[in-house]
């Protein structure tokens, strides 16, 4: 309460200078990032911040340089998303120049950086425990995973532990491809695996592109009801998939990407205003979204999703009031 009050005061004190946030994005393609960005944009508008977006199109090298470019424009705060170690030097430079840095799901090794994250471990725990519950810890499982992608690696660590704890779960095959047609090509692989392993009853696909592919594979082989898909993440397209009658993709553990973006922007805003205090990490807790609920409440888009799963919205994290009220 008190913190928010000060925020309003300072905004009122010098109304002209809106907060300039340089958003240095690793990539804006793909539904997750797209919706994340949507959320960030809307939130920036709401709280009256100015968002300048750099898009590295998935190229780490470009993102590093973008941080450098951003520093040159002297923003009030730099928000990086999904960045890897490489940006560290430039992030340090920014911090040294007195520009606070907030990272979303980023790997930046500097104590001064404020981290916002959707905890991959939590996501993975939530969905795997659902899997364990549904199968009573006894099932043949196809696992979709490609090593080398940090979030997937973190989600994988949890699954490794779950397997140890539940000897009844047998991972009979590991599949996965990551490229522009991830869903499609994962589908082909899952189909092949399902052919080779007819006793499989669950597919763990802790990434929505994998999950979509797995669902398509089960659909095309007509194994609906026999094989269930457990996923992670959500998007408009994912909702359509989950909501389909008899969809094999029955549950997904997720945060709301738009909410993630909003939280990140708010945190950056507060960091710029130096109102975060000692907070160095902001973690967005995940929610389990199930097809049953989506069908029941006839949800078709992310914006409606929050009405069915209010826990997806985390306004209490780094709260900032509307610009109008400020």
């Amino acid at each position, binding site marked *: 309460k008190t913190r928010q009050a000060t925020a309003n005061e300072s905004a009122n004190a010098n109304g002209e200078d809106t907060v300039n946030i340089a958003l240095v994005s690793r990539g*804006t*393609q*793909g*539904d997750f990032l*797209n919706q994340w960005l949507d959320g960030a944009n809307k939130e920036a508008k709401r709280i009256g911040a100015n968002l300048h977006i750099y898009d590295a199109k998935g190229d780490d090298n470009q993102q590093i340089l973008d941080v450098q470019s951003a520093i040159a424009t002297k923003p009030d705060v730099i928000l990086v998303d999904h960045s890897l170690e490489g940006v560290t030097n430039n992030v340090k430079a920014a911090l040294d120049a007195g520009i606070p840095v907030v990272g979303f799901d980023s790997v930046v090794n500097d104590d001064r950086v404020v981290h916002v994250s959707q905890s991959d471990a939590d996501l993975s725990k939530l969905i795997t425990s659902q899997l364990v519950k549904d199968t009573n810890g006894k099932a043949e499982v196809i696992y979709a995973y*490609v090593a080398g992608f940090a979030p997937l690696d973190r989600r994988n660590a949890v699954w490794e532990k779950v397997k140890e704890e539940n000897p009844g779960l047998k991972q*009979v*095959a*590991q*599949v*996965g*491809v990551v*490229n*522009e*047609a991830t*869903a*499609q*090509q994962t589908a*082909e*692989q899952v*189909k*092949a*695996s399902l*052919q*080779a392993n*007819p006793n499989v009853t669950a597919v763990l696909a802790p990434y929505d592109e994998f999950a*979509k592919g797995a669902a*398509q594979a089960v*659909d*095309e*082989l007509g194994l609906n009801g026999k094989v269930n898909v457990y996923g992670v993440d959500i*998007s*408009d*397209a994912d*909702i*359509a*998939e989950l*909501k389909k009658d008899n969809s094999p993709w029955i549950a997904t553990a997720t945060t709301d990407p738009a909410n993630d973006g909003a939280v990140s922007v708010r945190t950056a805003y507060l960091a710029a205003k130096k109102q975060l205090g000692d907070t160095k990490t902001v973690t967005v807790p995940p929610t389990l979204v199930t097809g049953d609920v989506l069908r029941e409440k006839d949800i*078709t*888009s992310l*914006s409606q999703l929050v009405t069915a799963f209010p826990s997806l919205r985390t306004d209490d994290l780094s709260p900032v009031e509307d610009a109008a009220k400020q």
Partner: protein
Amino acid sequence: MIDIKRVIYKYGLLALFVLMVVFFWIASPAFGTTQNVFVILQSVSVTAIVALGVTVSMAVDGFDMAAGSIVSLSVMVSTATQIYLGLGAFPAILFALLSGVLVGVFTGALIVFAKIPDMLAALGSMFAIQGLSLIITAGKSVSKGNGYNGAPAKGDFDDAFLWIGSGTVFTVPFSVILMILVGVIVAVFLERTRTGRLMRAIGSNREAARLAGTHVGAYRILAYALSGLLAALGGIVLAARVGRGDVNVGSSYLLEAISAALIGFAVFGANRPNAFGTVVGALFVGVLVNGLTMFNVPYYTQDFVKGTLLVIALVVSFSKIFNTQQRDR
């Protein structure tokens, strides 16, 4: 002696293919089931259709690098027509095919009228079209129930449209039938029709073809238009199977289609773009991926095996044995 060499040259790749199939069949009981055969055929259908288009462009000594982006465009157009505009399967298919043909004609026109080298022109088209298909949906993927930029959806996928992706005719998936049909048509077109023959003449010696009375420019544009048409058809099948318009899905089909068409050069020792070879090329990769996945070979090893096998196939087909035909340099 020489005859054996010729046989290896002509049938080496096919033999390798058959060997591979036999091996997988014996090693894994699930591989040879009818269902799995269909799974494989379905998995290569989009690649094969796109690759057949690329083959046509190669026939006139061109190279449709824009094919992948046309797949993306077609996916976006066909899904957006239904979801954003609320129109049915027929207009969706029509618009998608039309967009493919238009891009093809555009590329062809750049080549013929603006005299831009083939690859360069196709690259230009590719970039422009890649951008265009993103703009259609403001960079988002198109899915059921979601209209343009947050607006409510005006329609839903037409069942007839989805049938293209999931329907069967006498238990055979429609996409497989479509692939075979397109393969046969392209083969007949290139080998047995006047237009196809003239296209191949252009591909081999443009100037000679022109002086023998061929309207070279028109045929080159036509070849790209056909390539665009088939790429768009591939996009439609993809969109119908997935029931969703994913951004940029097409780009990964470009490389696969090129591989298939190039492997096809080696089939029957054709040493030139040919429809049958292209389909075999697509199947070759499809069977390999399917078989390896069945053996639970990790993804990163699969790529290596795929690459190594491709190289071996090429060496068997092109080296030494091939020499008997050509001057030794």
